[in-house]
């Protein structure tokens, strides 16, 4: 009877010990900065991703990339960052123990809506990718160029050429008569 609580506590202790690596600090952590952005269409922003090596060993050959997902209602989709002029993946050769590496991803905001951005790090020695927290990105719709600049030309020139064609036709008919 006395032994039962002892056995139970030993089992619970063993379970807790086996779970420590899962809940403990992982070898690499990533954070994204700024954590939220409000900007207008056409603005250029830069996200910085900080990769920290928490282990006592050098981390070699890791790949970091940024992802952007549209979370606007009805438009939920991952974005193709090539259109946003964002950098592609960054390959980090080595991060010394307990040191950090900062990668930068400048991008041009080409569409309005609500988005989330996050940085992911892939380490070939680890079978789980590590992602940062999500940074909220709110982009307001803006028309940067005044369409009135183009309207007089866009409408005026075909009309002017039409008048010229009518004039040529009229002169030809007159000369035939």
């Amino acid at each position, binding site marked *: 009877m006395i032994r039962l609580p002892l056995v139970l506590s030993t089992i619970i202790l063993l379970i807790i010990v086996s779970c420590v690596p899962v809940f403990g600090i992982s070898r690499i952590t990533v954070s994204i900065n700024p954590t939220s952005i409000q900007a207008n269409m056409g603005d250029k922003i830069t996200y910085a991703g900080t990769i920290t090596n928490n282990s006592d060993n050098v981390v070699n050959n890791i790949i970091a990339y940024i992802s952007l997902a549209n979370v606007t209602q009805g438009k939920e989709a991952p974005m193709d960052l090539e259109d946003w002029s964002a950098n592609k993946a960054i390959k980090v050769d080595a991060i010394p123990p307990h040191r950090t590496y900062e990668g930068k991803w400048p991008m041009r905001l080409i569409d*309005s809506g609500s988005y989330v951005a996050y940085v992911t790090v892939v380490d070939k020695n680890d079978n789980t990718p590590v992602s940062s927290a999500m940074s909220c990105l709110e982009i307001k719709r803006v028309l940067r160029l005044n369409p009135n600049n183009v309207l007089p030309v866009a409408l005026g*020139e075909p009309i002017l050429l039409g008048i010229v064609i009518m004039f040529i036709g009229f002169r030809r008919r007159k000369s035939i008569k």
Partner: protein
Amino acid sequence: MKTTYIMQKEIKESILTPKGFIWYILTSVILSILSYLFLTNSELSLLDQGQMLYMIMNFITALGVLIGLVFGADSFAGEIERGTIEALFLSPADKTEIAMGKLAAALINWGIIFMISLPYLLVVGKGGQNLLIGIAYLAILGTLLVTTFSAFSMGLSARIKSMKNSLIIAFFIFLLAGSPIFLSAAQRGTWFGRILDLINPFADAINIFDSVVIDSQGISYQIGRFAIICVYTFLSLWFLKVSASRLEM
């Protein structure tokens, strides 16, 4: 003088007619739509102004080359099929002068397209980088390319003597010349793509536009590509001269 006379005849017959003028209205309408979209469409309006200017310049050059090829295909084969070549040969102008007169008319046609496109270039590139230098490059390279493709198409027309076949070959040449537009950036980066880019005068011209308007590079970067385009121009003029001189009634 005789060349001028042939040129005037061609302009009266092919350009200063209501049917000939429809080309220009179409050019203007397409440029209006493009410019309006570039400046007002929410996504396109965010393109770099240099990028917009570069795209419009490519379009104008392609249009000039295409119209030059069609003009060239019609020049001799069209006259033969319409039965008017004899009358042309009976004129005091020799065959080379006839060919040069027709080529000059094709260049006047390019000049009109360039003038039509000027307001659009100014509106789209206003306030952006390298606008005036870009327009100057378009004028020079467009003239060289239109001369090259029109002269080649005319020479072909004189040899083939069939309007339909000349036109088909002209369109094939246009598609081949326009290959940089159909190839992806990755394909153009391969050794095959790079060689094709280098030996294709149209690709050379659009790479010069890119280099000048977007990358703001000077003339020293363009000399090699300029030289290749000039070689093609001289070769096409020589081909036209030889082909026209061999033309018989």
